[in-house]
Every structure is written in structure tokens, then in C-alpha cells.
């Protein structure tokens, strides 16, 4: 992969935020003894969202995991690195080891771990990517659509936004707003059942019922005069007609996508159809993922033939170790037997694991990331990791050595990664029509993923209860007022799970829909993912909830 080292005009090396494909510039600055913050470029129009702003503080966070620990009788006791590694290797002897590796790491780290696992017969590797995002990217890859850079996005004359792309990557809004400023008639079609930030700027807003994003997109594509075999029967086609007519005349269409947790089970079909739409109006797509390297992770997973996440989670015969990812928080799971977990800061998975190991943050690891438009870039570490804290590749290397396996050297210059072109399209089972209040999760600009890192930021932590967005009509029906503290309880098979939230009335939201933050692990736990090891799927679809004082 082509690599270029980015430097600022001064001799200082600037790093880049890798929490979304925007790749905003970061400059670490001392904020006291062992305390850091990021400094903002002096110039206007640089941009850095709250997620990136938080990274500086997290480098020296007081809750940072710096030493390995072993849980004995529910209490975490400090142990040496060698003892922790030995414990894992002994547990895996005869059973095999399944490594669940975060997909938001530099390409070199993922490749090094994959090469080690390839040479270590007892180890299996699964690269952990948000299931919805992975499916969406597989659909986009199969469609053959071009990935747009921000500059190319600014040259489009019409936009279709699926999900809340502005919350996923606030900087992508600039290109669209620039286009709108130049030509106020620029069509901006937004398909978002949770009426997120992008909906506010829509010229045509399609608010499908929960779980019906694919049908809404199919109706839009049909209305734009493009053939599709996807059914749009369950969506009101009249509302898509004017939006379709608006984009029908576009000479270059930009399609932005943000796949969201618990929203739909058809992200692969959505990705493929969105790609076809972009191809038909010679434009491109701009997927807004939870990290810069999600697309690379999808391609590396295909290249190394890693095992699917569903299989890794369903197979309880091997010893599992999570590296740099909060699998339980991401999937809303309470319990899934993890023997060991390595992370920079505590999360749901480290809380459940028997052995806890420290790990460098992605921003402390230099390496190649792929930003918007497949732009590969070698990113300098924000700061080197704490002394003695290993990178994922080093940790897996230590485990392999302790198990007597060879640790192969990773070739320095990797060849460019190919598109995943043979993705089998898995037809999603139709969702049942929801009755009553349906829970959706919406993205926030100040959290990444399920908030496993950003939730430790002091600004984020100071925010009050999670916001529950309701339409005024729905709030009146329930009998709750704006800013009231309420309990949200799941009314289906997961009954008994509940969460306290603060009501925020949102007139743009359709009645029958309640929206909680996606980055809140407790909110995801209301709608845990269903794991099907045989089919290899991990899905979360909208669930019914009740709201009470």
C-alpha cells in the first residue's frame, strides 16, 4: 500500500484522527504533568469533532489499563505480563485460541496479526467490524461504485444520504453545504427513519418506518428511473416520487451512507443498491464508518480468509481473546465467555474477561489508514504508547512465541488491497411490521463505536442522562414532557432490560419511533444482536419499547 508521511509546515509531525474517514489533523500538546490535549490548527476550516478532541485527554487518562490483571473471585489482581501470557496459552492448549481483533487498527497491525495466526495452527483470527458497516461495505464493494474523496464530493450536483452521515463524519457535511451555498436548488435526499442531523438539511426527506430503509431506497431508485429488483411495496412510493424526480437530472450524484446499529437487517442490499444508484448517475459513494480503516479491515478479512464474527462468538469450544475491541458493548451482549481481553481503557468486555491486558490505542500506533476515497496514508502516532504497553501485533507475537509457534516477519510494503468482488448477496428476511413504540439507535458526533473509548472523555462523561428523542405527538400520547426523566423498557423477548433517559422532543421525528444514542452501550443492550453461527450473521433489528416515568 502506498505510504506517505504527513508533516506540517513546522518540523513537528502531525497525526491524524482515525475515528472516521475524514482524517482530521491532530497535534498533541501538554496540558499538565502526564496530561495531554490536542491543539487545533491555527487556520479556519480545519475541523475536529468532539471525538477527535477527546483523544488527547485519553492518552493520559487516570483509568488507563497499564498493567495486566487476573480476575480472582471477582476481583482483578495485578499480574506480570509473562504470567498473563502464560495463563492464556495454558488455557488455549488443546482447545485452540480465537483472536477477535479490532478492525480500526493500522493496516500493518492487522496484517501482522493475520500473518502470525496463519503460521500458528491453533489460532483463529476474526476481525471485528460493526456488523451493519461490514454488510454495507460488502454491498458497496460488490456494486463496483467509486469511493469519493471530499473534493470529489464537493463536485457533485445532488446527494442521497442514507442514515445519519453528518453525525458519523461531521466534516463530510462541508462539501454538501458548500454545494448548497453555490446552488440552493441542489437536491439533498435523506433516508433516515431516526431523523438525525442530516435530515435538517434535506430538500427531500424520506422517513421510512423502522427497518424499511431498503424499501425507501428502492422506491427512490425506481422513481429516479433506474431499474431495480428490490421491492418497494411496503413503502409509500408517492413520497419518493418527488425525490426521485429531483435526482433524476443529476449529472454527478454523491451517495453518503452510514450503517447504523439495530436499524435494519438489509445493509448489504442497501449498499449494493446505493452503489448502483451512484453508478447510474456517474458519481460515487462515501461510506461514513466508525473508523478510517473499516474498508481496509473488510478487505483484509477477505484476503486472509478470517473467520466471521458470528462463528467466533458462537463457537464456545476455543479460548477467546478480544484485542482492542469491546465486542460485548458493540453487540449489546451481557455475557459471552471471553477468557482474556486487551484494551486501553476498561469496557464491557474487559469487565467480563478473566485476564485483562493493557493495549496501545489506535492513535498511539503509527501505520497506514485509508481515508475517504481510498486514500492510503501513513499516519504518525499521536504520542508513543506508555512504556511496556504492547501493540496488538506485539501481543499476539508474544502469545505465539509462548505457545511455541513461529512469528513470521511481515513484508514492509504490502501490495494495494483489492476490492471484495465476490460477496454473495444474502437476502434479508422481511421484518415484521412493528406495532407500538419502536426503538432506534442514532449516531452522535461526540462518540465513536459503542463509546468504549470516547465515553471516558471528561466532557462526554459530564453530559447528563442519555437523550431519548420522541415526537411531540408520541410524548403527549405517553404523557411525558420535554426534559422529563423516563425509563425505557424493552417490551419483547428481552423484557426486563431498561434504561433511564431524558426526553427531548423532536418535531422532525415520526410518531411511533423512539431514538436513543447508538454510542451508549446500555442502549445497545436494550437491543442485543442475534448471533447465528451457522448462517454467519450477526443482526440487530428494531425492537418495541415502552416509556414510563
Amino acid at each position: 500500500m502506498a505510504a506517505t508521511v504527513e508533516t506540517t509546515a513546522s518540523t513537528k509531525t502531525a497525526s491524524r484522527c482515525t475515528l472516521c474517514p475524514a482524517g482530521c489533523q491532530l497535534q498533541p500538546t501538554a496540558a499538565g504533568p502526564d496530561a495531554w490535549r490536542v491543539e487545533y490548527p491555527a487556520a479556519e476550516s480545519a475541523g475536529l469533532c468532539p471525538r477527535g478532541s477527546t483523544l488527547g485527554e485519553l492518552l493520559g487518562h487516570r483509568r488507563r489499563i497499564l498493567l495486566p490483571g487476573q480476575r480472582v473471585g471477582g476481583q482483578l489482581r495485578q499480574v506480570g505480563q509473562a504470567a498473563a501470557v502464560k495463563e492464556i496459552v495454558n488455557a488455549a492448549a488443546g482447545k485452540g485460541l480465537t483472536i477477535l481483533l479490532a478492525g480500526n487498527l493500522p493496516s500493518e497491525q492487522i496484517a501482522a496479526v493475520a500473518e502470525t495466526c496463519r503460521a500458528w495452527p491453533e489460532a483463529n483470527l476474526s476481525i471485528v467490524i460493526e456488523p451493519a458497516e461490514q454488510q454495507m461495505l460488502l454491498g458497496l464493494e460488490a456494486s463496483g461504485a467509486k469511493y469519493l474523496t471530499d473534493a470529489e464530493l464537493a463536485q457533485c450536483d445532488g446527494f442521497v444520504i442514507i442514515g445519519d452521515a453528518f453525525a458519523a463524519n461531521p466534516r463530510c457535511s462541508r462539501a454538501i453545504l458548500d454545494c448548497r451555498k453555490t446552488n440552493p436548488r441542489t437536491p439533498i435526499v435523506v433516508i433516515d427513519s431516526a431523523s438525525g442531523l442530516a435530515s435538517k438539511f434535506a430538500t427531500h426527506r424520506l422517513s421510512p418506518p423502522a427497518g424499511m430503509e431498503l424499501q425507501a431506497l428502492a422506491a427512490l431508485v425506481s422513481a429516479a428511473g433506474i431499474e431495480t429488483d428490490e421491492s418497494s411495496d411496503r413503502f409509500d412510493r408517492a413520497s419518493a416520487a418527488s425525490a426521485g424526480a429531483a435526482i433524476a437530472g443529476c449529472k454527478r450524484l454523491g451517495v453518503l451512507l452510514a450503517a447504523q446499529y439495530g436499524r435494519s437487517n438489509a445493509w448489504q442490499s442497501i449498499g449494493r443498491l446505493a452503489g448502483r444508484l451512484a453508478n447510474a448517475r456517474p458519481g460515487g459513494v462515501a461510506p461514513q464508518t466508525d473508523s478510517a480503516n473499516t474498508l481496509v479491515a473488510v478487505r483484509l478479512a477477505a484476503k486472509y480468509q478470517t473467520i466471521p464474527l458470528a462463528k467466533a462468538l458462537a463457537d464456545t469450544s476455543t479460548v477467546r481473546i478480544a484485542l482492542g475491541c469491546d465486542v460485548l458493548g458493540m453487540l449489546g451482549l451481557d455475557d459471552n465467555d471471553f477468557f482474556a481481553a486487551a484494551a486501553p481503557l476498561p469496557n464491557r468486555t474487559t469487565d467480563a474477561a478473566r485476564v485483562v491486558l493493557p493495549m496501545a490505542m489506535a492513535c498511539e500506533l503509527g501505520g497506514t489508514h485509508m481515508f475517504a476515497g481510498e486514500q492510503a496514508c501513513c499516519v504518525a502516532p499521536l504520542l508513543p504508547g506508555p512504556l511496556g504497553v504492547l501493540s496488538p501485533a506485539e501481543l499476539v507475537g508474544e502469545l505465539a512465541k509462548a505457545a511455541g509457534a513461529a512469528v513470521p516477519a511481515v513484508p514492509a510494503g504490502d501490495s494495494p488491497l483489492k476490492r471484495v468482488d465476490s460477496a454473495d448477496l444474502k437476502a434479508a428476511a422481511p421484518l415484521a411490521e412493528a406495532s407500538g413504540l419502536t426503538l432506534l439507535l442514532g449516531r452522535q458526533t461526540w462518540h465513536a463505536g459503542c463509546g468504549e473509548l470516547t465515553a471516558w472523555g471528561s466532557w462526554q462523561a459530564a453530559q447528563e442522562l442519555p437523550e431519548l428523542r420522541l415526537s411531540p405527538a408520541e410524548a403527549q400520547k405517553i404523557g411525558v414532557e420535554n426534559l422529563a426523566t423516563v425509563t425505557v423498557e424493552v417490551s419483547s423477548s428481552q423484557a426486563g432490560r431498561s434504561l433511564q433517559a431524558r426526553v427531548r422532543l423532536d418535531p422532525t421525528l415520526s410518531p411511533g419511533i423512539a431514538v436513543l444514542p447508538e454510542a451508549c452501550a446500555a442502549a445497545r443492550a436494550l437491543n442485543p444482536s442475534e448471533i447465528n453461527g451457522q448462517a454467519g450473521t450477526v443482526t440487530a433489528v428494531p425492537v418495541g419499547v415502552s416509556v414510563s416515568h
Partner: protein
Amino acid sequence: MPTTSTQPVVKRVLIDMDRCIECRSCAAACYYSHADMPAVDFARSGVAMLPVICRQCKSAPCVDACPAEAMVRDESGVARRLLFRCIGCGSCARACPFGVISTKLSGVSAWVKSPDRISGHQVAKCDLCADRTETDSEAVPRCVAACPSGALMFADEHEAEKLGVEVYGGRTSGQHPYKRR
């Protein structure tokens, strides 16, 4: 005694309401850069939620209201608080007609113990990131630099109009009822 000016600062932080995506990047940038004393608040008006940032009033009620002369207009015309004069009485917060000096801004406490631990609490006040803008004429406050959508600009009203942004909501210019001197 610091040099003071009677002329208000010309450049200030303006918000293009057509571009604000409610991402709160400005609030986070302010919080993380000013030792946990944020000076950016959010106001919700109907569907929209917009940042509320000090307007650098022509006749600043916060300066007039301060009994300890801790709130001054500095030599560059920026209304700012002198850290070691502030007695934490909250007069400035009560005087501010726009609610940008408060004990709580955007859900975060802006009412912190003074560094000397003697003079009590202090309330955050935007100084337009003087540590950057005083030394570099091209630099912009951190909230403006952090804004990913280009909604915030550091400009005078004429510059904003040249960019096609109509400036609404001026700043107080008359004598404020809190004026004491």
C-alpha cells in the same frame, strides 16, 4: 494594571445558521482547551440547536457589572476576565443578556474552583482564545478551527457580509442597567 481599551474588538465569532449541524465540536474544543472551563453553550429553538458564544458586546454588561474590576476590555478590545482578580461573585453571569456566562454551559459545569483555592469559584468567560489570536493575526479561536461544517467564522461584520452571510443579533451598545461606574 493591564492596559485596557474602550474600543470593542472588531473580529468576533459569527455563526452561519445555515451551516450549523449541531455537532457540538465547538463546545468540546472549548472545554478541552480551557482547563475544563467551557465558554460555549447551546440553545435550542424549535428544531434547531445552535451554539451560543460571547458576542463581545460594544458596551459589555459583564465588564460594567464586575465589582472587582476582574472583567475588563483588554488592549485589543476583547472583553475578558482577569483570573486572579475574580472573586467568583457571579455578577457577570447575572448581567450577561445572552446567557453565555453561566455556572453551567452545554451540560458541563463552568463554575470551577480558582487555581489559588482562595478566591473561591470562577465562571468561564470567552477571551477569543487570546493565547492564539494575540500572537498570530491569522489564527482563529479554537471553536472556529474545530468547526467541521464551516458554520463558525472569525470575522467582522463586513467580512461576513462579503461571504454572503447576513448578520443578525447584534451586541449591546447602550448603557446597561447594571452599569456601576
